[in-house]
Structure formats: C-alpha cells, structure tokens
C-alpha cells in the first residue's frame, strides 16, 4: 500500500452537475439522473432512520420477558411499521434508486437514462406513497405485520390500514417506472462498443432487478388495491365470512414479496462484483456465470413464493415443489459466492472501507443464505417457521447483505458522486463497529428461534432473556455503526479532500470522467474497446501485467 511517490493533489472540477444550476427548483424539477439519485438518497435515509427508531424501540421493549416499553397493541404497531418503512421505502429503492440511477448511465457511456422525466416522476410517486404511509403511521399506526394477512388487515384491524396500503400501492409505481427506465436504458443507450458482455456486473444485476420490478410489482399493486377496497367497501375477496379466501391473499402477496427479496439483494450483489475486483486488483472470476446467475435468480425467484406458506395447509406435493425450487434458487447465489472468493484468491488485496463491507457481505450473506435453506426444508420449517430463526435469517441477508452492499457502494462511489474523499480511518472503524454490532444483534436470534421464541410476540419466557439482552446490546453498537457514516459523509461534502477522477483506481467507464461528473456525464461519447475488470492491463492506472494480457472475460460479443 505504501508508495514511494507522493500522492497527487486533486482539485474539484470547476463545472459539474452539482453546481451547474442553483436553487430549489433546479433540484425539484431536475431531470438529471445524478440529481435524482440525491433526491432518493434523502428519501431513503429518512425512512431508514424512521425504521431504525422503530427497531430501537422494539429492542428496548424486549429487554425484559414481560416487555419494558410499550403495550402489546403498540408493540404490534412497532414491528409492522418497522417492516413497512424498511422494506418498501428503504431496502427496495435504496441501491437501484440511489446508486443505480447515478451510475448506470455513466457505466454504459450514456448522457442520462432513457426516460429522464419518468425518472423524476418515479421520485415524486415515491414521496407521495411515503406521505400516505406516514399519514397512516401518524393516525393510529399499523398493526397487521408488514405482510398484511387477511382478514386481520382487510376487516378486523383497528389501525390505519387503508392509507398505508394505498401508500404502498402508489409507491409500487415508483418501482415499476424505475425498472422500465433501467431495462430500456440498458437495451438502447449503451455507448458504441459497449456490448452486453462488456457491461459491468453492476449493470447486469440491475437489469435482472428490473425484470423483477416489471413483472412482480404490479401483482402487489393489485393485491393491496383489493385489500383497500375490501376494507373500505366491505367486499369479500379475502374474508371467509363472505365467501372469500385468506389464502388467496397470501398467494398473491407472496408472488410479489418473494421476488421482492431478490430486488433487495441482487443490486447489492452487483455492488460487491464491482468492489472485489477493484481491491483485489484482479479481473473478476467467471464474469459470464455471475451475469447469468443474476438473471437465473430473477427468473427462478418467481417460482418459490409458497415456501412462505408451508404451514397454511398447502398440499404435500405443492410444498415439495416449492421446497425443491427454493433449493434450486440458492445455486446461482452460491455460484456468485464461489466466484467472488476465486477472485480474491491470489489477488493483491487491500482493506479499504468498501472492501471491508464487501468481505463482510460475503460472510454474512453466506450465513443468511444457508439458513434460508434450513427454512426451505419442509420438516425443519414446521418447527422454525414464525420464530426468531426466520427473523435472524432475513436480517442476515437484508442487513448483513443488502445494507452492507449499499454502504460499501456508497463508500466506493462517494468520491465519484461528491468529488470528495471520506475520512478513511474513521470509515474503517465504523465498518468494523457495524459488523460487530450486527452479529451481536442477530446471531443470538438464531439461537432464540431454535429454542422456540416466536416472532411478533411482545413478551417471552424468562429463559430467553439473556440472549435478548445481548441482542439489544448489539443493536446499540449497530446504531453507532450507522450513525458514523451519516456524520462523516456529511462532513466530507464540505471538508473532504478532493478525490480526482479515479482514487482507487478502478476500471469502468464511470471512473474515466471527472469527479463529480459534468451534467452530460462525458465530454465526448466514449467508444469502448476494452474488456471489463481488466486490472492486469491498464498501465494508465498503474496496473500492468508482467506477461501477456489476460484473455477477455467473454468472447467478442
């Protein structure tokens, strides 16, 4: 890591997308994908903070077996609102709407996405949906669980269900617009020479995610619309007293919500595929397999939804099929983990903050993914369904995986987005703090689940207290791990050192333009004639191979 030459001193470019126009209207009426990414950053950070406050209240409440903080009814509202805020308004938009919006045009050599005005509309739709949900939170809250099972949500709940489901319905169109935009952009707006198999894997990951946005989101939209109609007009689609079928709701709900979890993880996997080659200074291993695995996860992910319903009385044969398919969908994820590991092997590894997050991702996603296989086991699921084992499983993937991917990506591309460097030492401390806090929070929850502690309960038997207290202690450390980046990122915008175009250095088109980029991204339309992740063959970046150049990752497509 030590160099004998002094580090070059960079200055910020004079004109870039952040200072090209001023005033609130230039931000609220922007069609620049880079500014829209900032708008989304503000929105998702707000909902993350809100969801985090609910999580803190849950963990404090669970310090004692009989519950410390709130009434049982309020506890139901806490875990529901935590889930709704985090899933629909933070995790699903986060990487695609912030990093995807900013980077995809840059990575493919385009000036903007295919439909810039629809991009801005998608943010407004997100905000309007969010306002409906905030209204619900403020006027009685929501106590149905983020899964809105009927007939509790459609008939019996005394909480503000209708505005919440309307808000999530509206927010769904934000996802649909984003998915449409990315899919068309990647198809039609690649620069000359940017063939499909020269695309960064981040772009492949977002293409796969867009497939899910496009095909899955409309189903949750119509489902929640039916819940709202049932609740307000007393219809009977999902109400058994009126001849309706609550299990139909669950099928419709999970048909989207399972692919939704792949919406949450595929972009993070795309981030990891960018970070690992950069900080191992080695081309990624198995580019084609990683690209194909993203598409496979998106496709197979549509066929496993009823593994959430093993205990609803579905037929043994249906359960068998869904269990088998759930095992199958793990295979492409495993392919990625193997390929990232193979990329690290014999690489020249440095432990910059993005790499710390990426390495953490691999380990934590592995645990989360493997425990998903435990849950896909029909016999085992009977005992661990609806316990803390499930909670630990999905938090290992969504927090240990998706959020660490998001933070790793924010750190990796922060210099490009802002033109400034964040403080590296403090950032590494924050990453380690987050990792330790995370494992202390959710590791004990696997044990609690196996010991039989149910989820969504406001109290528990006294023998579970030690593990619950450990979990809450971990949550306080985790919170510190999240607060630190919020502070130093904000600090760096004003006081950070200028980053220059390519601080790492990394290959990829986005690193060839200034930091921050000009509004039109590139001064001249790039013409691509090199292979992706060519870390051994870029003397301009100080990365040279002693021997012959490596064969391209894929043939001349």
């Amino acid at each position, binding site marked *: 890591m030590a160099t004998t030459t002094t580090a070059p001193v960079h200055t910020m470019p004079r004109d870039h997308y952040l200072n090209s126009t001023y005033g609130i209207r230039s931000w609220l009426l922007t069609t620049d994908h880079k500014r829209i990414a900032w708008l989304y950053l503000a929105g998702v950070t707000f909902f993350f903070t809100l969801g985090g406050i609910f999580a803190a209240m849950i963990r404090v409440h669970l310090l004692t077996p009989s519950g410390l903080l709130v009434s049982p009814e309020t506890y139901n509202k806490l875990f529901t609102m935590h889930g709704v805020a985090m899933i629909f308004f933070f995790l699903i938009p986060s990487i695609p709407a912030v990093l995807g919006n900013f980077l995809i045009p840059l990575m493919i050599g385009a000036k903007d996405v*295919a439909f810039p005005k629809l991009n801005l509309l998608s943010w407004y739709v997100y905000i309007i949906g969010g306002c409906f949900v905030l209204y619900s939170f403020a006027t009685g809250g929501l106590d149905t669980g983020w899964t809105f099972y009927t007939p509790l949500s459609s008939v019996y709940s005394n909480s503000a269900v209708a505005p919440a489901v309307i808000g999530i319905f509206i927010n769904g169109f934000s996802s649909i617009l984003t998915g449409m935009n990315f899919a068309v952009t990647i198809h039609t707006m690649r620069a000359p020479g940017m063939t499909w198999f020269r695309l960064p894997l981040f772009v492949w990951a977002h293409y796969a995610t867009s497939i899910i946005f496009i095909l899955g989101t409309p*189903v949750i939209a*119509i489902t929640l619309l039916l819940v709202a109609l049932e609740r307000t007009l007393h*219809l009977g689609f999902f109400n058994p*007293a009126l001849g309706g079928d609550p299990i139909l709701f669950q099928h419709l709900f999970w048909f989207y919500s399972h692919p939704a979890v792949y919406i949450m993880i595929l972009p993070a996997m795309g981030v990891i595929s960018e970070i690992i080659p950069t900080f191992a200074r080695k081309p990624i291993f198995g580019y084609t397999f990683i690209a194909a695995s993203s598409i496979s996860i998106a496709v197979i992910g549509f066929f496993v939804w009823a593994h959430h319903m093993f205990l609803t009385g579905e037929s043994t044969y249906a359960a068998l099929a869904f269990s088998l398919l759930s095992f199958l969908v793990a295979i492409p994820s495993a392919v990625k983990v193997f390929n990232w590991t193979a990329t690290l092997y014999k690489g020249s590894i440095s432990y910059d903050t993005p790499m710390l997050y990426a390495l953490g991702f691999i380990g934590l996603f592995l645990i989360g993914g493997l425990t998903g296989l435990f849950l896909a086991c029909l016999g085992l699921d009977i005992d661990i369904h609806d316990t803390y084992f499930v909670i630990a499983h999905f938090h290992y993937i969504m927090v240990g995986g998706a959020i660490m991917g998001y933070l790793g990506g924010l750190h990796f591309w922060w210099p490009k987005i802002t033109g400034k460097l964040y403080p590296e030492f403090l950032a590494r401390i924050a990453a380690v703090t987050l990792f330790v806090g995370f494992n202390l929070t959710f590791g004990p929850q696997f044990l609690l689940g196996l010991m039989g502690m149910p989820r969504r309960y406001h109290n528990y038997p006294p023998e579970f207290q030690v593990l619950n207290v450990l979990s809450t202690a971990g949550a306080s450390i985790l919170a510190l791990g999240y607060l630190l980046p919020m502070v130093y990122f904000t600090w760096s915008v004003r006081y950070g050192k200028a980053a220059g175009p390519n601080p790492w250095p990394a290959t990829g088109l986005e690193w060839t333009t200034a930091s921050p980029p000009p509004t039109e991204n590139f001064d001249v339309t790039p013409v691509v004639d090199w292979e992706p992740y060519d870390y051994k063959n870029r003397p301009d970046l100080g990365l040279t191979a002693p021997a012959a150049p490596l064969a391209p990752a894929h043939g001349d497509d």
Partner: protein
Amino acid sequence: MHRTGELYGHFQTLEQQKDSATLGMWIFLATEILFFGGLFLTYSINRQTYPGVFADASKTLDLTLGTLNTAVLIASSLTMAMAVWSAEAGKKKLIPVYLILTLILGTVFLGVKAVEYHAKYVEHHIPGLPFQFEPGSTAATNAHAELFFSLYFGMTGLHALHMVVGVGLLLWLLRQSLKGRFTAEYNTPIENVGLYWHFVDIVWIYLYPLLYLIDRHK
C-alpha cells in the same frame, strides 16, 4: 420546450429515441398484464368455488349491450390500426379522421358501460351500496353473488379507467396530428398509443366471455 418529433438531448439518434419509446411501451404493457392478472386469478379461484352463483349472476348482465360493446371496441382497434397505417403511409390528412373515429367508438363504449352500471345500480347489484341479489336468496348466495359483482365492477372498472386514459392519449394525438407533426419518418407516438389501445381491447376480449357468457348455453 420539446416539440413532438424532435430529438431529445440525452439520445444520440432519432432511431435510438424511437427504439427506446417503443420498448418502453411494450414493457409497460407487460406490467399491465401482471396487474390485470391478479384480478383474473381472483376471478378464476372464485368462479371455480361458486360456479352456480357465478352463472346466475352472469345471466343478469345485459348480453346485448356487452356484445355490442365488444363489437364497438374491436372496430375501434381497426380504426386505430388505420390511423397508424395512415401515418406510416404519409397520408397526413387521414390521420385525424381515423383518430376521431376511434375516439367516437371509445366514447360509445364508455357510454354503454355507464348505462350498464346504472342498470346494476337500479337492481341493487353494486357491492358496497346495499347489495341484494335475487329477493329470497340465502345469505351465502348473496355473499357469493356480491363476490361476482365485486369482480365485475373491479375488472370492468379498471378496464374503463384504462379506456379513459386511452381517450386522453387519443385527444393528445389528435391535437398533434392536426398540427401536422406525424410523418412517414416520424410516427412513434401513434404507434405506441396504438399498442396501448390494442392492449386495452385485448383485455376486454378476455373480460367479455369470462363475465358475460358463463353457462349461457345452458
């Protein structure tokens, strides 16, 4: 201010712009298939569970008006296709003619639907308002018939909403065509609205037999 037919700043060529717009419309239609799909699934499950009541409820729908509407909508797809052809053939004067014909047919469809909805209102077949199927039905039959009509209004209502949007798009196209904006070289908006209009027509082609023709042969 962008004028229809000009190159947007972020595109490199008009061909790229056209390809993007058309691909975008196809993808949007894919989302619409999934959107309506949830309703079709709910319909299928409920019809399989309550076949007798669904057949009885279906028979209270006006077959003449439903069939008329089907013919009207298919004719409107023809006139829409003629509008697209006129643009591609460069016959600029014909474009507004066919667009207006499509508009008229679409409006007729919506008018007939209004008549049908009113008839349902009079017969107390609108769920949510006091719903009463045949006098003397059991509570269960009443509830199951209300399910049928919830689906009827939900599906045809959602379809009608899409028709209204379509009418709005046609009015916009009419305005642009009267300004002479569409030529043989540039007619992407007409083509894409045509795609949308044909999709809405296809949805109706499924709705008509599923809602109006249950057990009519018996």
